[in-house]
């Protein structure tokens, strides 16, 4: 028996697998028992009512998808009156995702949704801050710190800060979020991208640019999750391109305490169950008693062969010799 529980700050989850915001809703309960998930993270709720972006809102690209759904939203009143009661039917903890146009609006919304029935609040600070030229809060450390402080003051619930991979130096943003009072980080939202239909010469999305998700982003977001996990002391939840248990384990080895699965659900609605089952099986096979033991358990690169080549064919750090005098480079 593998112990699959993980702790995200004060919140204990039955297992480390949960949906990514915007790719899950109660409708999935038509396909499987969603109480088997570690948590239920729902689509971002905004302070204002929104209709979302023009269609086409999604496009396929090699190894992934683009979306410019935006955040169609009926507003916080609807969330409180309809959504929260609806989720009482489920036992898995409900995580509300919120976002707003200004720090103050954000804080007010945060306070509003801090109600019984909500176990944690994911603050989607990857959304534009109109007080900073429409730049997303999490593009830079300073606005991240500022908004997190306000959010922290507005709620006693655990706050998960969801970062944007479009930031130049995500570790610094991660540290700012921690300093501002985040209880955990979600790394990360989608990467801004686009594609063009060369026959019509039109962008594939009605909004021209949109967020890339799916397998294509995994190596990039995994790197960011690794960087963040090494830069903060709060738990990091990895999110980007997880299609199966192997991907989830990569994130956990890189330092993530839990994972979120988004796009995979669109291909296989019960993908998250496969991820849970696969993690459990891998732990059992590898003598891991508690899944939390593998968090950050990355071996050092180099010497004994990063790949499983034959006993007689391993890759090594070239012996130093005179070459030792030559600089190993800092960055590729």
């Amino acid at each position, binding site marked *: 028996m593998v112990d699959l529980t993980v702790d995200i700050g004060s919140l204990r989850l039955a297992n480390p697998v949960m949906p990514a915001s*915007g*790719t*899950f*809703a109660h*409708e*999935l309960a*038509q*396909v*499987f*028992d969603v109480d088997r998930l570690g948590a239920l993270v729902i*689509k971002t709720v905004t302070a204002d009512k929104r*209709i*979302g972006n023009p*269609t*086409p*809102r*999604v496009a*396929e*690209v*090699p*190894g*992934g*998808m683009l*979306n410019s*759904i935006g955040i*169609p939203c009926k507003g916080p009143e609807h969330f409180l009156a309809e959504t929260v009661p609806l989720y009482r039917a489920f036992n898995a903890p409900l995580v509300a995702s919120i976002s707003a146009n200004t720090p103050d609006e954000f804080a007010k919304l945060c306070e509003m949704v801090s109600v019984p029935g909500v176990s944690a609040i994911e603050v989607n600070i990857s959304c534009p801050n109109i007080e900073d030229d429409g730049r997303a809060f999490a593009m830079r450390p300073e606005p991240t710190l500022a908004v997190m402080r306000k959010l922290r003051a507005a709620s006693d619930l655990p706050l998960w800060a969801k970062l944007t991979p479009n930031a130049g130096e995500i570790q610094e943003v991660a540290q700012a979020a921690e300093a501002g009072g985040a209880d955990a980080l979600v790394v990360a939202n989608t990467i801004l991208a686009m594609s063009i239909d060369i026959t019509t010469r039109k962008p594939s999305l009605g909004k021209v640019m949109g967020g890339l998700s*799916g*397998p294509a982003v995994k190596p990039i977001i995994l790197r960011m999750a690794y960087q963040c996990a090494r830069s903060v002391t709060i738990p990091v939840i990895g999110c980007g391109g997880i*299609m*199966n*248990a*192997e991907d989830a384990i990569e994130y956990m080895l890189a330092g993530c305490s839990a994972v979120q699965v988004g796009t*995979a*659900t*669109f*291909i*296989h*609605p*019960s*993908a998250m*169950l*496969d*991820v849970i*089952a*696969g993690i459990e099986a891998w732990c059992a096979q590898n003598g891991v008693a508690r899944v939390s033991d593998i968090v950050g358990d990355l071996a050092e690169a180099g010497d004994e062969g990063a790949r499983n080549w034959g006993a007689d064919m391993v890759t090594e750090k070239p012996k130093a010799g005179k070459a030792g005098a030559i600089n190993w480079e800092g960055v590729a």
Partner: protein
Amino acid sequence: MQAVHAVPPQPDSLPVLEERAEILRHEAVNGEYRLMQVAAPDQAQRARAGQFFHLLCPQDDALKPFFRRPMSIYAIDAQGGRISFLYKVTGTGTKALAKLGIGERLDMLGPLGIGFSLPPDEAPGRKTPIVILARGVGLATLAPLVGLARGAGHDVTAILSARSPDLLMSVEETRAAGAQAITITDSQGNSDTGHVAALLDDLHAKGRMGALYTCGSNRLLKLAQEHAARHGLFGEVAMEQQMACGLGMCFCCVRAFREGDATVHRRVCCEGPVFPLEEALGW
């Protein structure tokens, strides 16, 4: 990269299933359309006319197509546990689908969405006669409505429109189900709006059009809306929109609808694909 996917046990009570159904038949119907029949007993039992399945088309070496593809139920054999699709080979997904052989398996999610409803009785004990206005691929969606309505005792007239006579489909099946089938084609020059309008007027005059159903053509949608409005008829339209999740979670499949004075977005996958005729906005 692809999820190592073992379909988990799904309780009998769940309305939507993901199954790997065996392909029983798969053949070209004409130069553009293919018919595929699969064995999917549990899904067939749940399926209703107007609903659809979200199909995982075999992916090529570039993971294309990435998304599932929505496909209406063309025929349901609940007892035999079979479902048929009638589809047009258009892009990556349907091309990949077309390559699947008999005996291979098709990963299908469904049944999904809200199907057709039948009109209230015209008069106590008198079933409203319905007219189905189908063009092109819209036929695939409307076909099972013929059986549904006939089974419930409705008089059914199906106006089947196509570019040319060889692209007409389901004419025999429609008649065999006890419905009247009127065929019109571009090449014969009797499928234009004027002609169809005259046909509808004629059917209404004869008391054979108490409700109107359509799908697949913007032009026919407008026409149907005009006639339904003019005569105060019950009507429904099946809409299409690109889909990712198919379940109502992602909001990519919205279309605009009239709701009183307002224009609202509705998700085609779960608030449709069948909508009240008068609320649909053309596209």
